């Protein structure tokens, strides 16, 4: 065996080995990636094609840009995209600020920290629909807060089904703060104590340490978390469908109406492609930015 192997020239042997390694990789990757290829990529390709009138369901297939023209010409669809971008941005910014503060404070030892570090994860396992219900019972007109304020003659503003999507943002913040906090706490606890101690030693106040040391060193986590939350919220369906105003509607709600109520797969696909494309652009920008960022931190 060894002699046989020795007889083969070195280069070929290396190639054989490389091919074998590649085969092993392939076999190992096949279950997971194969699954995703079949059940994610295929439908996505279908959505993309259907957005151009191909593979149409219930109508003749024909290449057309009409669906996109329809979307862009329709103020309702345009408004829904803008509305989704709006509450995604709002949710991301508010969640980021809150979770930065929470994560930073969680780095400090205080009585009951362990309980808090368990409690704050509850929203992670609570379905967002449950969150919607719980928040509704609190902040809706007629919710607990408005009832508590009634005797004082304070009129509680409309926070649910309102035009500014405040209820949507509130529930999404409730749900996303823990996710962000998990990511940010992990990053922050990775910052060596020496570094912050050094900054303190050089005369920085706690706030200055937070601003000049903690936040910059957490940037990779901050950007990743923000991206995840933003894209996730941008396509959110259940919360906006329950807490949204009659107008404008979130893009996902418009899509589901097109699909479920009108079986208008073509238009929904065009909208879906736009949503995906916007997310992809964002992801691309993120990677461009992160490359610089990472290079700087290394």
């Amino acid at each position, binding site marked *: 065996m060894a002699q046989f192997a020795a007889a083969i020239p070195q280069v070929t042997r290396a190639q054989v080995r490389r091919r074998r390694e590649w085969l092993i990789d392939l076999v190992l990757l096949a279950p997971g990636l194969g699954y995703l290829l079949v059940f994610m990529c295929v439908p996505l390709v279908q959505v993309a094609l259907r957005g151009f009138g191909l593979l149409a*369901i219930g109508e003749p297939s024909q290449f057309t840009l009409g669906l996109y023209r329809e979307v862009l010409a329709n103020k309702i669809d345009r408004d829904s995209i803008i509305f989704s971008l709006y509450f995604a941005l709002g949710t991301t910014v508010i969640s980021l600020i809150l979770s930065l503060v929470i994560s930073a404070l969680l780095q400090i030892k205080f009585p009951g920290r362990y309980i808090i570090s368990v409690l704050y994860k509850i929203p992670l396992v609570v379905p967002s629909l449950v969150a919607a219900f719980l928040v509704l019972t609190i902040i809706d007109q007629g919710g607990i807060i408005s009832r508590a304020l009634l005797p004082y003659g304070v009129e509680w503003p409309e926070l649910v089904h309102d035009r500014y999507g405040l209820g949507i943002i509130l529930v999404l913040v409730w749900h996303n703060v823990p996710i962000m906090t998990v990511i940010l706490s992990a990053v922050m606890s990775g910052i060596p104590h020496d570094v912050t101690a050094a900054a303190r030693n050089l005369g920085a106040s706690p706030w200055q340490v937070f601003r000049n040391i903690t936040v910059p060193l957490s940037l990779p986590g901050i950007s990743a978390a923000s991206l995840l939350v933003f894209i996730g919220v941008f396509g959110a369906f259940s919360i906006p469908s329950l807490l949204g105003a009659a107008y404008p509607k979130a893009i996902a709600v418009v899509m589901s109406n097109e699909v479920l109520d009108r079986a208008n797969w073509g238009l929904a696909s065009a909208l879906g492609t736009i949503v995906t494309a916007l997310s992809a652009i964002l992801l691309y920008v993120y990677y461009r930015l992160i490359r610089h960022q990472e290079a700087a931190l290394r």
Partner: protein
Amino acid sequence: MIAPLLFLVVILVAPVGAVSPVGADKFNVRAQIDLSKLTRDNFTAMVTPAAKSQSGLVFYDFADTLCELLAKESAEFTQQTGIAVKHVCVDGDTATQQLIAEAQAGKPASADLFFGPNNSMRALTKAGVIANLPLVDLLPNATDVEQAAARASRGFKHGGTVVPFHRNQTALAYNSALVTKPPQTFEELLTFAREHSGKVTVTDPTHGGSGSGFLESALLKFSPQCKDDYYNFDLTKEQAAAAAQRCMAPVLAYWRSLKPHIKFSNSNENSIKALANNVALVATVWEDDLFTLATKGLVPQSARPVLLQTGQVGDGDGLFIVASTQKLEAALLYANFLMSDKVQIDKLEQTGSRTARVNLQTKGKIPEKLAKFLVLDTMYHERTRPRINGQITDAAADLFVKEIIAK
């Protein structure tokens, strides 16, 4: 990597051949019994034996308010007959699309019976989902069905294949503890809204029948000249859109003055919730919705329904047998059960859903403490109006969103 992927795409999207309807040349449904011999009189004798051998009926029920009740009634039917029924609460539009998609794909339908939204019946018939049996003429319990509702749904003439199971009524609801004199005309409503700005809630017409019904009532009031079009059910989609365009102007004018003082809600129930939370003093509702939620303690005792003098539209929804069913006889038996006195009266008592059966005596069947959530019988008969051509409503609603809501 790309090639196999494309291959997969092709395989998975290859169109499935349309399948021709099953059954005899006259009926699009397969039966054990001879359907051509079936009449109202021999119904029970003919259907029952065959039905007994069939079990596992699937019944799609789209009405939110009836979901709980019909689950119980289904269980009772099973107990009586031994025929198991799976009662599924569905979203009307979704289920419609599902059944159509299944029919187009040549797949057996997920449901054997569908109690569905009446404006879906046109599309469902076109797609061959509805068994072409004139249930209204066959079911013994359907003898006394109101003629206006028997053979058409929302203007679509189905010839009795869809039996009217449930009648309902759009209305205004108000809080009688805070509103002594409820608005009874559109003008009074406008005045009321101006005096109590933000305290009137209207359902978005694209999000709930209480809203689109209100829109139809407004069309009837402000553009009476279009009445012929409203009730012309032979219009094409384009003609309907043109009619809506023509008739909407005064309605839009009214709405422009009303809009600053009202709030839109995005579902029938949210309008009622606004009332319950004291956010609204007046709201557009379905009468049976108000009633049902009242039984669950979600409507304050002081809430009352009222109809505008110029009329508000009422409607109803029907149920039909799905053409691809393998359990036709059991489905027939079940449909007849749903039209029975007991179910129809339970329905009224527990959910405020009116019946299409004119001879059914319901007087005294409503518990005293719930009767106040129904429109008085005299007012109902005087002010109810049939719903107009649904295609006009759809076109009008689109215009409404564009001109009023999105502004």
